[in-house]
C-alpha cells in the first residue's frame, strides 16, 4: 500500500495548459499516474496531449471524468480560489504546488477545506509520490523506487537528495510526501506520521524538517507518545541566522524559537535517530529496521 495516493488515484490537474502545469502533467503521465482530467477556465472541450479532456471547472471534471484527487499549478493570485473550488467540487485530496500564496488567504482556505472534509497538501510543496503506483506533483520519479520506507519533508530538492541516497543503496519507499515550506500548510508532519503508522506497508519513516515554527517539536511528541515504527530525522538550517527568511516563507527563526538545535533536541528526546548529514539516512534506516 502507501499513503494518500495509489493505483486508484484519478487526478485532475488545475492549470493543465499553463507552462508548469503542462510540463509536469506530461511527466506524471509518463510515470503512470492516471491523469483523468484537466481544468483551465475557457478551454473546456479541448484535449491535452490529444487524450486528457480539459474542463472549465473542477465540478465538471468530477462529473465528467470521475476525478478524486487534484493538483494545482495555477499562479499565486488564483491558487487559494483553486483549492476552494476543488474542495467545493467534492475532491478529497488537494495538492497545491504553487509557491507565493498570501498567508492571509490561507487562513480562510483552511477552515473551508476542513468543512468540506478534504485534505490539502501544501501550498508551496513538491507534492507526493507512491513509487510504482502514482505521482502527484513534481518529485522526479526516476530517483524513487518502491519499498517500505515512508518519507515526509518540508523541502523539495533536499527530499530528492535523501530519497536518492535511499534508492541508490537499494532502500525503496512506500510514499514520499512534501508538505511544503509555508507557515500555514494543510497537512503537517503529524498527519503524515499518523498515516505511515497505520500503513501496513511502511516499516520506518524519515522526517525532514527545517528551522521555523514548532511542527517538528509537536511531531517529536507524537512519535514519542503514539508511534511504534522507528523514525529517523533531519533538520536543515543549523547555520541559519536568526530573523531571516531562508527561502521558504516558513523557514525563519522568530526571536529565539524555531532553531535547529531546539528541534534536534526534541527529536533526540523522542527517540528519533538524528541525521547529521543527508547521507546518514542510509545507515540510520538500516539500523532502525
Amino acid at each position: 500500500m502507501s499513503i494518500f495516493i495509489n493505483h486508484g488515484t484519478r487526478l485532475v490537474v488545475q492549470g493543465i495548459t499553463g507552462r508548469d502545469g503542462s510540463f509536469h502533467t506530461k511527466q506524471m503521465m509518463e510515470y503512470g499516474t492516471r491523469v483523468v482530467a484537466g481544468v483551465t477556465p475557457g478551454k473546456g472541450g479541448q484535449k491535452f496531449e490529444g487524450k486528457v479532456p480539459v474542463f472549465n471547472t473542477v465540478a465538471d471534471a468530477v462529473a465528467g471524468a470521475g476525478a478524486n484527487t487534484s493538483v494545482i499549478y495555477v499562479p499565486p493570485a488564483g491558487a487559494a480560489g483553486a483549492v476552494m473550488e476543488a474542495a467545493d467540487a467534492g475532491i478529497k485530496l488537494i495538492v497545491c504546488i504553487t509557491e507565493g500564496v498570501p498567508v492571509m488567504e490561507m487562513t480562510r482556505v483552511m477552515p473551508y477545506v476542513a468543512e468540506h472534509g478534504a485534505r490539502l497538501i501544501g501550498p508551496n510543496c513538491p507534492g507526493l509520490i507512491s513509487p510504482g503506483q502514482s505521482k502527484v506533483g513534481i518529485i522526479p520519479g526516476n530517483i524513487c523506487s518502491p519499498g517500505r520506507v515512508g518519507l515526509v519533508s518540508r523541502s523539495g530538492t533536499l527530499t530528492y537528495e535523501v530519497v536518492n541516497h535511499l534508492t541508490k543503496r537499494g532502500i525503496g519507499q512506500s510514499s514520499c510526501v512534501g508538505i511544503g515550506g509555508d507557515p500555514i500548510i494543510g497537512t503537517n508532519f503529524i498527519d503524515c506520521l499518523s498515516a505511515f503508522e497505520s500503513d501496513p506497508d511502511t516499516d520506518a519513516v524519515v522526517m525532514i524538517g527545517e528551522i521555523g515554527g514548532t511542527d517538528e517539536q509537536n511531531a517529536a511528541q507524537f512519535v514519542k507518545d503514539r508511534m511504534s515504527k522507528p523514525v529517523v530525522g533531519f533538520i536543515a538550517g543549523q547555520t541559519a541566522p536568526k530573523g531571516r527568511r531562508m527561502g521558504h516563507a516558513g523557514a525563519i527563526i522568530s526571536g529565539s524559537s524555531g532553531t535547529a538545535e531546539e528541534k534536534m533536541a526534541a527529536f533526540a528526546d523522542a527517540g528519533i535517530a538524528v541525521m547529521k548529514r543527508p547521507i546518514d539516512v542510509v545507515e540510520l534506516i538500516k539500523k532502525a529496521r
Partner: protein
Amino acid sequence: MNLHEYQARELLKAAGVPMFDGGVASSPDEAEAIARKLGGTTVIKAQVHSGGRGKAGGVKLAKSAEEAREHAAAILGMTIKGLVVSKVLVVPAAEIATEAYVGLIMDRASQGPVFMVSSAGGVDIEEVAAKSPEKITRLAVDPVYGLLPHQAMGLAFSLYKDYAQVKTAARIMQQLYRVFTANGCSLAEINPLVSTPTGEVLALDAKVSIDDNELERRPDLAALRDDSAEAPSEVAAREAGLTFIKLDGNVGCVVNGAGLAMATMDLVKYYGGEPANFLDIGGSSNPDKVVNALRIITSDPAVKAILFNIFGGITRTDDVANGIRTALEKFPVNVPIVVRLTGTNEAEAVKILQGIGMTALSDMDEAVEKVVGIVKEAA
C-alpha cells in the same frame, strides 16, 4: 518585509488609531520645522530596521526646535548595526501614565491571527513572554468571523479599569485587526500603547511586517520597501529573482531549493568550513540566474571558493552548466569553483563543463569536503 516606524504609523493612523501628530524628516532643516510646528519637547527617532535604536544613540529628546535640528543632524547619516539612517521621525514627547503592549501575529499553530496584549508595555515583549508569561493575554481570532466585539472588550479590560479607556482600547484593537488583515501582515504591534495623565489612550510606537507573498498583488505595499535598509547584495539578488542572504563565512554557495541550500550550508560547517551565504536559484532553468548568482557572490571579497550544489529536478543541470560557462566568459572569477550536480540532463552538463576545463562531482559530501579543503589550504 518590515516597514519603518513612520510607515507603520501611517497605516494605523489611516485606520483611525489615535496617536500624536508627528512628521518624518530627511534633513536637519525639516526636523527643526516639524519640531517647531509641534511645539514643546520632542523625540527624534532614527528610522532603521533594527532594535536597540535607543542604546545606539538613535533616539534623542529635544527641548527646543533648535535642539531637534542638532539631534537630527547627529542621527541622520549615523550607522546602526550596519544600516545608515536616512530618515528621522519627530514626535512630541508624551507625558505617560501607563504603558501597555498590543500585538497581533500570524500564528502558525492556530493557523490564524493571534492577539497578545500585556499591561507590561514599553519593553521587549519576548522578554516578558519568557520571564513572566502570565502577564500576557493571548487570544486566537477566528479568521472567518474576525475579532468579535466582546473579544476586543475582553482584551481591553485586561489592560484598563476605567471604562472610557477600555472602550477606546477596544476600538484600537478592532482598528489594529483591520490593518492586519487588510494589508496581509505577519505582525502588527503597538508598543507602547500609552495612557496620559489626563486619561487619553493612544499609540506611541508601531511596528508592522508584511507577508512577502502579498507584495505581488499589492503594489501600494511593495512601494513601501526601502532598499537602503538592506545589504546591497541582497537587493541585487532580489531584483535578479534569487533568494540570497549574506553570511560571515568564506565559502560561497549556489544551490537550487531552499531546504537543500540550508543543508549545504550546514554540511560546509560540518566539514569545518563557514558558508558565505544562503543562495537559492529556485526551480526554473534560467542560465541568467546562475550568471547573476556568480556576479553577486564574487562581489564579496571574503569569498575564497564557490560551491555549486544542484540536484536537477525541474532545474536542468545543463542550464546551470551553461550559466557557469556564460558567467566565466562575461567576467573574471578569481576563486576556485567546485561543482556538484546530479539529476536532469546530467550527462550534457558534465560535457559542457568539461568543454571549459572543469569537472563535476556527483556526490554532495565529496564536493563540500573538496571546497572546504581548498579554502583551508588558501588560508
